[in-house]
């Protein structure tokens, strides 16, 4: 399946799906149409709807980590029932994370727009870049490494690297030394390749795609003595992205 097709498919699910994140201006037009057509829905007389609550009300809200672990566990169990092997399971977890990435991207945009312009997407670029949609790969990666990770896990990711191989200039790596989603997972030996952080890989993929960067993202175990759960998220950007990157570089776009 080609990447753009998948993006389109997921969007249509998010329209019809029961869990629509409120819309911000940067989102594409057809979601707007959707929110207007939803006048057919009944609303409580006290108007407790998503449109009447501030989108930031849950910004610093917390829930139990165990609740997340239990939900995630059920997601893995449910996915396991419908798959043929480890790769299939990871693909399925990736697919479940993907729409989350699209939604989180909206939330990130909304919040970086709402807060002052000083909250740049990239911690390294001091050139007060307005928090717009990233155009180049590097600002996108910083968006993932910093704000996305902080939103999800309350801390930035642990490392961000570019592939050193000249063969694969389109490969980037984001490291998490101790992924939250794997906290309680003890992978049996016969499944040692499995990394349930494939779910997070799917989230990253959703964010990339939502920004217009076609990419494949996978999660890999890279344990060290100190960090037995260390996971590398490998981002492989598509050819079209790499070509555009060259054009933008020549044009001096950052």
């Amino acid at each position, binding site marked *: 399946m080609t990447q753009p097709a998948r993006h389109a498919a997921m969007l249509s699910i998010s329209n019809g799906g029961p869990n629509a994140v409120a819309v911000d201006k940067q989102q594409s037009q057809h979601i707007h149409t959707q929110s207007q057509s939803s006048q057919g*829905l009944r609303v409580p007389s006290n108007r407790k709807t998503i449109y009447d609550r501030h989108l930031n009300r849950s910004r610093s809200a917390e829930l139990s980590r165990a609740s997340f672990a239990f*939900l995630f566990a*059920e997601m893995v169990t449910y996915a396991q029932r419908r798959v043929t092997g480890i790769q299939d399971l990871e693909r399925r977890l990736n697919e479940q994370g993907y729409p989350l990435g699209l939604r989180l991207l909206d939330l990130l945009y909304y919040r970086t727009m709402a807060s002052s312009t000083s909250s740049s997407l990239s911690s390294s670029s001091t050139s007060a870049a307005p928090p717009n949609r990233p155009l180049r790969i590097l600002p996108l990666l910083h968006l993932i490494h910093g704000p996305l990770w902080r939103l999800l896990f309350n801390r930035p990711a642990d490392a961000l690297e570019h592939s050193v191989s000249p063969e694969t200039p389109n490969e980037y790596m984001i490291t998490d030394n101790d992924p939250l989603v794997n906290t309680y997972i003890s992978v049996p030996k016969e499944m040692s390749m499995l990394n349930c952080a494939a779910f997070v890989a799917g989230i990253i993929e959703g964010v990339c795609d939502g920004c217009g960067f076609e990419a494949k993202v996978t999660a890999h175990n890279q344990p060290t003595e100190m960090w037995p759960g260390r996971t590398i998220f490998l981002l492989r950007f598509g050819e079209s992205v790499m070509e555009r990157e060259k054009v933008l570089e020549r044009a001096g776009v950052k």
Partner: protein
Amino acid sequence: MSSATKASRIGEELWKTRVDKVNAELVTLTYGTIVAQLCQDYDGNYQEVNKQLEKMGYNIGMRLIEDFLAKSNVGRCANFRETADMISKVGFRIFLNIAPTVTNWTSDNNQFSLIFDENPLADFVELPDDGRAQDELWFSNILCGVLRGALEMVQMQIEAHFVSDVLRGDDTTEMRVSLVRYIEDEMPPDEE
């Protein structure tokens, strides 16, 4: 001190001191993708989605009760009224940081309602405008299963279902919980 006040205090104290936290939106959105995935897998058959959510909740409840007991170190409840306070003021507090109101008891003390003013699972949610979801889907149905699974593990067979949901346009979100019976200990298998 009433059992409700006592339970409230235990719940607050545990939430503050013993509960590891995560960003609420991660939980909310993860639950959203689970429901969306089910709606997709079951092709918009919301009755089936409700059923699956209840099953998932049941599985979660069986695990969650152990975490509940490990954290709270509370003993057996003296009666079902005490159980209701424990569920609302301690259980919901430490797992979802809410405490739904316990009300509408039947005279035999075997049935009550939980009224949810807040429901973190449904933050960000609007049901699909397909003319059916608001009549058929119980978005938070997983919670019914959680109660059934958790209470079964502490020897109570119960039945729980939602009777209203603000997502459906109702003014309240209400779950009805009924005690079916207390479960006897299972005996060891006969020696052969």
